[in-house]
């Protein structure tokens, strides 16, 4: 039986078990399962937000509260249908998240999670102080949801509603993560420079995930209100927020399934603690939170990955990494018209960049012509990588101008540089180690494809995905990694990781390719193959700007060489002339003895 068949069989068994569960289990267990479902929705939002997008939120419970209170107010005070309450819950949580997100998501690092504590607290305090929300007394007598005139009153009836919601949410989330925008979400984690250089707008993606996670929490709040038939501020405080985060982290925050597993583990262990602790101490209610805190600390100290990765380690390889479907596609991505060979493409005029008192790049001018391979060489610290970052807009120059194909790129963002036709690799490899080689390379085609979030979530993007996949596989084969396409990028040797970066840059269909030390870490046979590849790429019309320390390699492939030393241009010319240049020899060898 194939791995895919085993997967579908397992899924069918799980679905069937879920279907008959209420008939077999008692009321108490069904209620517990309903809570697991509601927790799962919130934890799923956090899986997308924290595990995939790298944004931590302690405030999700506040969004659950907004959803719950919205529908509670609408269906009791205003006497409207719970289904209108659902619309209100989703709209209100999304709009709130949008406003908070627009303000706070620009912040990097630890600012964002900390601000979530503050606004989470503020929203919770609002619930308890508004008269129309019943202050700390809350709102009671919330009607159950009716479906085709059938009131979902009993816990076993609610069971199907909540678990259908969970099933749909899990499906949408896993579709999304495997789509173009889903890859962009996963690319955010670990730094934004890569995302920017791939043409991804990190702010837009973050905002989307943040709103999506809030909407999932709002949905959970809606279900909660109509299941409990009562809402009060207490379940939406900071403590609940951290519990949701605990679920996501415990389950394995990079995995969609982690949401269910984490939610179930927390709900069950909470239940178990409530049964057990009264035997240990008289004031068990207080000890519960202490035990929880301690368990969370132990988990983060010893197994930060969570449960899912632990389980995956014991599954057969086939179940972990599904084989890459190699479907050659007749359609191709739109192709750039290459500039005519010999035409001036990239022009740097008097470019300087200083960091505090250090001048890393000092009044450097050179140009790259279409169809040529220009090597940028120089001793360590000569300013080569800084020059790369200046050209691709990762950092702006202090003075001077940079233009590309007649277009001014001075101070432009990496996304503008990419749109102009520049794709690059990095000296310190920037891959997403948990994603497969294929997925990493497909990221390179982000700027050439267009599927949106909705198309990805509903699998309407399959035609474009097939084309992108085929394009990525072609470039992977070109750099000689066809065998490793489904391997996690982090498992490759460093030299191979550099090749993955080259394939990723090539998929962007650049008119100029910038390679930062591509041959470092390669063996001599691999270097020869790389040299052939670079020549082929150049002959197909793509200009190449190369930084490399291996002089034999440079001399073999370069048409022209620019030498930098201490941030200044030392020499420029054909390889032979550079080899004989006394100033260059002095810089490299410290003077001819």
């Amino acid at each position, binding site marked *: 039986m194939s791995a895919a068949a085993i997967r579908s069989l397992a899924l069918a068994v799980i679905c069937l078990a879920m279907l008959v569960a209420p008939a077999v289990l008692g009321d108490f267990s069904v209620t517990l399962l309903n809570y697991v479902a509601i927790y799962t929705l919130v934890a799923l939002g956090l899986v997308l937000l924290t595990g995939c997008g790298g944004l*931590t939120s302690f405030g999700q419970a506040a969004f659950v509260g907004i959803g719950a209170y919205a529908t509670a107010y609408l269906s009791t005070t205003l006497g409207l249908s719970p289904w209108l309450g659902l619309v209100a819950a989703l709209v209100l949580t999304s709009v709130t998240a949008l406003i908070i997100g627009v303000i706070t998501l*620009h912040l990097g690092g630890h600012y964002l999670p*900390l601000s979530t504590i*503050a*606004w989470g607290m503020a929203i919770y305090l609002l619930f308890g102080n508004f008269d129309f929300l019943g202050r700390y007394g809350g709102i009671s007598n919330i009607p159950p949801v009716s479906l085709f005139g059938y009131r979902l009153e009993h816990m076993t009836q609610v069971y199907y509603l909540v678990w259908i919601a969970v099933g749909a949410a899990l499906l949408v989330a896993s579709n999304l993560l495997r789509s173009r925008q889903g890859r962009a979400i996963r690319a955010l984690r*670990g730094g934004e420079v890569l995302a920017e250089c791939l043409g991804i707008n990190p702010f837009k993606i973050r905002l989307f995930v943040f709103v999506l996670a809030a909407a999932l929490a709002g949905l959970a709040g809606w279900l909660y209100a109509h299941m409990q038939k009562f809402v009060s501020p207490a379940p939406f405080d900071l403590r609940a927020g951290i519990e949701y985060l605990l679920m996501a982290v415990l389950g394995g925050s990079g995995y969609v399934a982690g949401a269910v597993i984490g939610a179930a583990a927390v709900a069950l262990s909470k239940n178990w603690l409530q049964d057990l602790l009264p035997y240990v101490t008289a004031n068990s209610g207080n000890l519960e939170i202490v035990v929880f*805190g301690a368990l969370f600390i132990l988990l983060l*100290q010893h197994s*930060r990955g969570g449960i899912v990765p632990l389980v995956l380690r014991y599954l057969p390889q086939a179940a972990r990494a599904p084989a890459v479907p190699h479907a050659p596609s007749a359609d191709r991505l739109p192709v750039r018209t290459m500039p005519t060979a010999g035409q001036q493409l990239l022009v740097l005029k008097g470019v300087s960049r200083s960091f505090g008192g250090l001048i890393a790049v000092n009044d450097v001018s050179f140009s790259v012509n279409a169809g040529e391979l220009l090597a940028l060489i120089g001793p360590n610290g000569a300013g080569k990588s800084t020059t790369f970052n200046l050209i691709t807009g990762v950092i702006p120059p202090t003075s001077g101008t940079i233009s590309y194909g007649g277009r001014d790129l001075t101070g432009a963002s990496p996304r503008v540089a990419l749109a102009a036709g520049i794709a690059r690799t990095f000296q310190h490899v920037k891959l997403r180690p948990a994603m497969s080689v294929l997925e990493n390379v497909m990221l390179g085609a982000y700027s050439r494809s267009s599927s949106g979030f909705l198309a990805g979530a509903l699998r309407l993007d399959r035609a474009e995905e097939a084309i992108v996949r085929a394009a990525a596989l072609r470039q992977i084969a070109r750099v000689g990694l066809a065998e490793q396409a489904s391997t996690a990028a982090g498992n490759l040797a460093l030299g191979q990781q550099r090749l993955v970066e080259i394939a990723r840059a090539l998929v962007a269909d650049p008119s100029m390719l910038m390679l930062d030390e591509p041959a470092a870490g390669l063996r001599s046979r691999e270097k020869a193959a790389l040299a052939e590849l670079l020549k082929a790429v150049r002959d197909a019309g793509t200009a190449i700007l190369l930084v490399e320390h291996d002089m034999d390699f440079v001399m073999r492939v370069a048409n022209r060489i620019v030498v930098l030393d201490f941030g200044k241009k030392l020499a420029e010319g054909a390889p032979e002339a550079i080899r004989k240049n006394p100033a260059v020899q002095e810089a490299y060898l410290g003077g001819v003895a």
Partner: protein
Amino acid sequence: MNLDIAILLIEDGLASGAIYVLMALGFVLVFNVTRVIFVPFGDLVSYAALTLASFQLQRTPGTIWLLVTLAALAILLEVLRLYRIGQFARLPRALVVWGVLPLLPVACTLLLDGFALPSYVAIPLTFALILPIGPLLYRIVFQPIANAPVLVLLMVSVALHFAVSGLALMYFGPEGMRTTPLVQGAFDLFGIAISASLLLIVGVAAALSIALLLFFRLTLTGKALLATASNREGARLVGIRTATTSAAAFLVAGIIATVAGVLISPMTTIYYDTGLIVGLKGFVGSVAGGFVSYPLAALGGVIIGQVESFSSFYASAFKEAIVFAAVIPVILARWLWASNAHIEEHDEE
């Protein structure tokens, strides 16, 4: 609102603002040195206030049980570590540092149990009981994951807060306590009445802030802390034990928290969970300083005090909500301020 009320509100805001300044400085200090956002910092304020109140009520403060538990855990960890690296010769020193030192004040407390303690005994004893908590928490919780990403440290920190404040509920119960004022009376300054306790709070907060500044400028330990803050690897290379400097940062945080707790407890009734709110307000202040600038963090603390005081007049039910929502405009201002900085890169997996 007339001028008298405005002056009253400003004075009120100054008193709580002074506390928030201390908290903000503490957050910045611990974060800079250890990269930990020390959420349980506020809980230490609760512990300090409740410990002092317990002494005044002639009860045994539950703090001693926290210390006993933490000391036992720390010793266990030290024994395991020394066993693993096979250096049992260093065990006596570890026992003294992690066992004897924290348990000394516990012993004193038990000896003096039942006596009516005057302030000049109760306050130092409170300090002695609270100070070891910071380093002990660092040793047990943060030191094993000192190199983890900031976000992991933050999650651990939040979880630790729940554990520590849950224990506070067990030790001190849900009732609030209030201590007797340290000073009485009022002064007259150009026709404005200023209470002695306001003067004490602002004076002590200012003195402690300046003392911290001098500590960093003038002492070797202070400089080692600064070095660890600016570059952990570099500090290691020049022979600074980063574990020690980190524990020292938590010790200083303990001093700040105890001062804040002793100052705040005559002003307002302190419950087991009051500290979190006090700490978070100080945190909102430190956000203004972007977690790196001490003067900006202090300024943020002063402003939060005023915002709180005036919103309690205009919309008392929403006082807390307004203060926490204030973090958003503060962050926005920070962002506009620093928006020309280039893309932040954090390689964390």
